[in-house]
């Protein structure tokens, strides 16, 4: 191929000649994208790492090196330890709930029924609509006084108005609320991922299993699930990364409260680093996301390599 490109006789300038070399043009083409990403993702990332071992605040922007002192301080803070465990509860709670909803949603949407297109289009909405706006709608549904959820529970006679739960004002309920909202946002994505996987399972494999006597559940869990596992893994990785580092749902619904019950790493980093201006401690808090992200990346790299063999 390269030989063909080079052998074209052209009375062109030297510049033209260089542009016709595959490797040169290739590098020129990728350069802007790589530079953009290096300058505004790579460099800031290194800055974040350096902030976390320095004494930098927006009021006193020194680059003085303080070693691991920031980390030592935040680890001793019981509020931070709670934030860390909250982040895990929030992430795995909502991913688990989202995956279950996604799996069953996919099974429902697989079967043809009148109006399936419309239902499918509506089910995508929670994931498509900007998360901040959907979250605000949920915040209104969880309102302490005008909550439609409470209204329904009261109307159905489950509780009286004096017993009505204050969803975002009680520590456990607030955590459940943010988990539900995040699972709600994630489940359409899970459905789509499951559907993409299931429709890719060859029908003859399923037919063969049926002939061999495999029932619905056996087909489901011994054939379909193992076969779609790779694609579900990718979906889950996205879900985990974006939930573990999320800030908007918690920021808009609870502000990390009540009394730190829903504070997660992203929110805590924002509060410390941006609101209070303590950049170094904020960066140290955010960096606690890194181990999880690294595990995910390593897992993904191994997965990609295995797929190629």
């Amino acid at each position: 191929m390269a030989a063909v490109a080079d052998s074209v006789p052209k009375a062109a300038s030297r510049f033209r000649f260089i542009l016709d070399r595959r490797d040169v043009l290739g590098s020129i083409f990728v350069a802007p994208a790589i530079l953009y990403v290096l300058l505004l993702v790579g460099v800031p990332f290194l800055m974040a790492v350096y902030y976390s071992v320095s004494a930098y605040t927006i009021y006193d922007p020194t680059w003085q090196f303080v070693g691991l002192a920031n980390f030592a301080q935040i680890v001793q803070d019981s509020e931070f330890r709670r934030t860390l465990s909250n982040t895990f509860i929030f992430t795995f709670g909502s991913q688990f709930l989202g995956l279950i909803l996604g799996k069953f949603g996919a099974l429902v949407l697989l079967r043809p029924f009148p109006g399936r297109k419309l239902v499918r289009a509506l089910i995508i909405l929670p994931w498509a609509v900007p998360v901040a706006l959907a979250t605000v709608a949920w915040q209104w549904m969880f309102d302490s006084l005008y909550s439609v959820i409470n209204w329904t529970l009261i109307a159905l006679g489950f509780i009286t108005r004096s017993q009505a739960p204050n969803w975002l004002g009680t520590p456990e309920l607030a955590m459940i609320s943010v988990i539900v909202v995040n699972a709600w946002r994630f489940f359409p994505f899970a459905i789509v991922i499951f559907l993409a996987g299931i429709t890719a399972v060859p029908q003859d494999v399923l037919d063969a299993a049926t002939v061999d006597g495999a029932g619905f559940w056996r087909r489901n869990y011994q054939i379909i699930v193992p076969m779609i596992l790779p694609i579900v893994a990718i979906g889950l990785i996205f879900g985990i990364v974006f939930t573990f580092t999320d800030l908007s749902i918690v920021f808009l619904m609870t502000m990390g409260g009540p009394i730190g019950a829903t504070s997660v790493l992203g929110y805590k980093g924002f509060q410390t680093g941006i609101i209070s201006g303590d950049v170094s401690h904020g960066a140290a808090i955010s960096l606690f996301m890194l181990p999880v992200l690294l595990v995910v990346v390593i897992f993904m790299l191994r997965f990609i390599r295995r797929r190629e063999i």
Partner: protein
Amino acid sequence: MPRVTVAKAARETSFYGAVAFFFILAAFPFYWMVITSFKTNSDLYNVTNIPFWFNDPPTLEHFRYLFEKTLFATWLLNSLIIGLCVVVITLVTALPAAYSLARLTGRTGETLGIGIFFTYLVPPTLLFLPLSRVIAGLGLQNSMWSLVLIYPTFTIPFCTWLLMGFFKAMPPEIEEAAIVDGCSLFGAFFKMAIPLSLPGILTVVIFTFTLTLQEFVYALTFISSSDQKPITLGVATDLIRGDIFYWGEIMAGALIASIPVAIAYNLFLDRFIAGITGGAVK
């Protein structure tokens, strides 16, 4: 025979029950958005009213308030400007990069492509502290142009990845034929590859735009002046005065901002999934 019929009826009922469950779960918050935005305040804030429908006749008062008394129109315009600028930056950088990674650079290209994709996974909450210092250093704090600068950090990786898929799916023989006919390598890209991948480019334009509309964390971090906010940030944070939430206005604004994104996603969903899973389904 009747037992079979009963069992079948039970199965049908539970199936449609499940359909109804998912339908309500997904759609109710949006129904709630719609109905709230058209209700009068006296209807909204009365706990004895049945909240699921209009007890007073519907009203446009919230929409009027939104456009006349708030900066809503400005936010809408800001989002449009930000989105268009980011689309241009993304196309100019991601198109050649994706082409190069798919065609020109071979094995290293694949590794680089995976590397670029991973940067999409670096979360805003890890980068917002240093980036806010960078923005301040450039004098862009409190300006929507900071978002035009920063948003390509996630749209470029994402779109490069998507476009790589499109270019790989295109037979290289077409460009090779053009080169044999005397076209330069650059010409083959510009005159052959780009026009042929227009559907892919359209997908990328739509998704870049919706990604900028959905972003919240960077906007929240960099911008505090009301007149510089994009629509998502403005609606979610600027319609609250002290402790008072203007729920009718908030829901009306959320509704207007959500509709285009919802339509775009439904139209382009399949391509998005193909892009995000990167050929994991063979």
